């Protein structure tokens, strides 16, 4: 049993990377989690759900400093009397970012890592790893290099590592943020098997559709407090409208209405010809003889992990010099170099594309027009910042901004470079409803100014909100392409394969 009584925690300092928003503390929290319960914590960014997770797995107070009152007990013992080593034997953790939760490079070593730290017998560990891999059907993930795996595969390895030690309590912090629908389905299957084994599971999550049939109880948090509670009997009654009211992502994706009426004005088209490209590792390739995309529209690029979505947009962007393909755009035939002049990509990790010391400098850096003086540049940059609601932070260091502000700073520099094609790589991964809506509105504004937008995404709700056209990539080829309207929504939903709410046992 886990018990929070009157727990208040506030972080000591604002972290320099601006994640204070995400890591806001909790206030007067009283939660009791029974053994074997499946508890879902949800709420907007900064609601305190991550803090709850950290209080359970011992990272607070062992790793994150701050002021704490009240008591948290695990099985009757106060966490303050336990070292994080003691706690780590009882609580297993899966984190949001699959890139940064592995100590080892080799997958098998990583699965063994927690058990090795607990001094279990090596032969026993090896046997458990083998049986775990068989039962999870991930034998092909054994003895691999972590850096070669997709996000979904990495999360599988993290779950396998937990199975090897098999702790009684398992906490997960937004485990689905970087996963496609197939991988989420697998994750749901693992959660189900844990539930059947009687583990206590606490999961903090924005995307709720895959948890519908798993959750015993759901707590909605806001500002560090629990604002609503739903039991297993009430969760199926949460309709799309009700979720929207609560500021939550929906439980049933099928219910999301398609409500867009905006007339499409197609003024021209972008043609891709002979886009054939293979990476040096020969693992991923695309071969697209011809593809036409309406100019001035928002196109979603969908497909499973490894289908070639990223390869396609990298080539559209001109980042792969060896690609011989030609893009016809406004009467010009563009080779990779020319495409680089016309395209701008907002990467999934925007930290990689912010270089300067202030937001304003960042935008001015993109203005390569030599005829403009510094003052003119600054004025133009300010106009762009006002448009994106960033004028208040113009003098701040980009790294001190929140995730959403960083993303908009990157968009601002794309706009400043006057590129006509803007590409986004999973812009909504890990976003709550409110922030997802903001990004969708941003996309629409880009479209209004005449930009052509490509979005690589797995987010069904987001696609319904803003995309006009769907390109489905399958094994490096175009599997399907269609305009999104009332008739084709069903097709998209079918591809996402989520009619059942992700409850299929894998």
């Amino acid at each position, binding site marked *: 049993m886990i018990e929070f009584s009157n727990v208040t925690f506030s972080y000591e300092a604002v972290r320099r990377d601006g994640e204070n928003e995400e890591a806001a503390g909790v206030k007067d929290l009283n939660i009791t989690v029974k053994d074997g319960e499946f508890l879902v914590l949800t709420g907007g960014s900064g609601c305190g759900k991550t803090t709850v997770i950290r209080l359970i797995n011992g990272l607070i107070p062992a790793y994150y400093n701050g002021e704490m009152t009240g008591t948290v007990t695990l099985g009757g013992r106060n966490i303050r009397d336990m070292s*994080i080593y003691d706690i780590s034997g009882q609580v297993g953790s899966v984190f949001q970012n699959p890139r940064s939760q592995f100590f080892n490079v080799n997958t098998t070593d990583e699965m063994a890592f927690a058990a090795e*730290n607990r001094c279990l017998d*090596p032969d026993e560990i090896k046997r458990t790893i083998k049986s775990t891999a068989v039962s999870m059907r991930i034998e092909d993930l054994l003895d691999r290099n972590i850096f070669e795996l997709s996000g979904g595969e990495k999360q599988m390895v993290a779950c396998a590592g937990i199975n090897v030690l098999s702790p009684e309590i398992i906490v997960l912090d937004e485990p689905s943020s970087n996963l496609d629908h197939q991988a989420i389905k697998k994750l749901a299957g693992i959660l189900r098997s844990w539930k059947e084994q009687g583990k206590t599971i606490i999961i903090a999550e924005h995307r709720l559709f895959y948890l519908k049939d798993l959750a015993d109880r759901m707590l909605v948090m806001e500002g560090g407090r629990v604002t609503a509670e739903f039991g297993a009997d009430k969760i199926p009654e949460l309709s799309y409208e009700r979720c929207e009211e609560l500021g939550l992502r929906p439980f049933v994706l099928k219910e999301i209405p398609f409500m867009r009426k905006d007339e499409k004005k197609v003024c021209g088209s972008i043609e891709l010809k002979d886009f054939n490209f293979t990476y040096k590792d020969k693992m991923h390739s695309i071969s697209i003889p011809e593809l036409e995309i309406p100019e001035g529209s928002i196109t979603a690029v969908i497909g499973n992990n490894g289908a070639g979505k990223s390869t396609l947009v990298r080539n559209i962007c001109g980042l792969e010099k060896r690609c011989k393909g030609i893009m016809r755009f406004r009467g010009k035939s563009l080779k990779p170099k020319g495409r680089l002049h016309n395209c701008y990509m907002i990467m999934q990790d925007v930290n990689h594309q912010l270089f300067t010391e202030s937001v304003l400098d960042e935008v001015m850096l993109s203005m390569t027009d030599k005829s403009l003086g510094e003052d003119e540049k600054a004025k133009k940059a300010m106009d762009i910042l006002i448009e994106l609601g960033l004028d208040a932070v113009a003098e701040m260091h980009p790294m001190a901004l929140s995730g959403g502000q960083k993303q908009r700073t990157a968009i601002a520099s794309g706009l400043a470079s006057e590129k006509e094609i803007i590409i986004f790589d999973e812009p909504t991964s890990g976003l709550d409803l409110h922030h997802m809506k903001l990004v969708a509105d941003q996309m629409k504004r880009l479209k209004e100014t005449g930009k052509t937008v490509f979005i690589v995404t797995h987010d069904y709700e987001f696609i319904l909100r803003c995309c006009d056209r769907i390109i489905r990539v399958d094994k490096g080829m175009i599997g399907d392409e269609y305009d999104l309207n009332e008739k084709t929504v069903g097709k998209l939903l079918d591809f996402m394969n989520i009619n059942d709410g992700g409850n299929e046992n894998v």
Partner: protein
Amino acid sequence: METGSRTAAGKEMLKLDPRTKLAILITVGIIMMSGKLTGIEYILRLICTCVPFLLLISVKLYKTAVISALILFATVLCEGFVIPNTKGILNLMIMIICGVISRFGPGYICGWYVVRSTSVSEFVTVMERMHFPNIITIPMSVMFRYFPTLKEEYLSIRDAMKMREIGQSIKNPFTYIEYILVPIMMSTSQIANDLSAASLTKGLGAGRKRTHICSIGMTCIDYILIAAMAAMLVIFFVF
């Protein structure tokens, strides 16, 4: 070429103990870096030139092995037979080019081999066997994991720079370095934070004993190789 990763099982023909690998690295490094171009030292240098070739063959990188062996032998033979017979500028140029390649090349390849063929957990195991304290072992083992991370980060940042059409390395080397370093430091320090937190929840406690699933042990070949390396060093320093 990926660094920091053990090749998948069965890819290696010869599995050496990490201690043997270190002995090879140190010996080849010393002899190639500081050996003279005449007499017994030159013969030792010739022997050491073969080592990278054999190591690369053992991890089945045949093409790289042959190419690097050809280059290394060409430079070492140049040093032995061409340099004494040339004069002036030509002599100087050959000496500088061959010198750089033959003195740093083999050590570089051996180092690359050590990093590539040793997994993090093998490394930790061996360090513990040699009674190094955790305070040294754990940061060093994280370093192993960091090479591929740095590479990933670097590649994304370079792409971002290409898209911004900024930082041409030739025109502005300092700006280029700044633009690469700032985002790398930011994102790697973030990764390091997350990584430490994740390791703590997996029970990586200071000062506690761990078990190991990897089998590390000195075999007959390891002893022979270490003896050979020791012998070469003795000859090198005594004669």
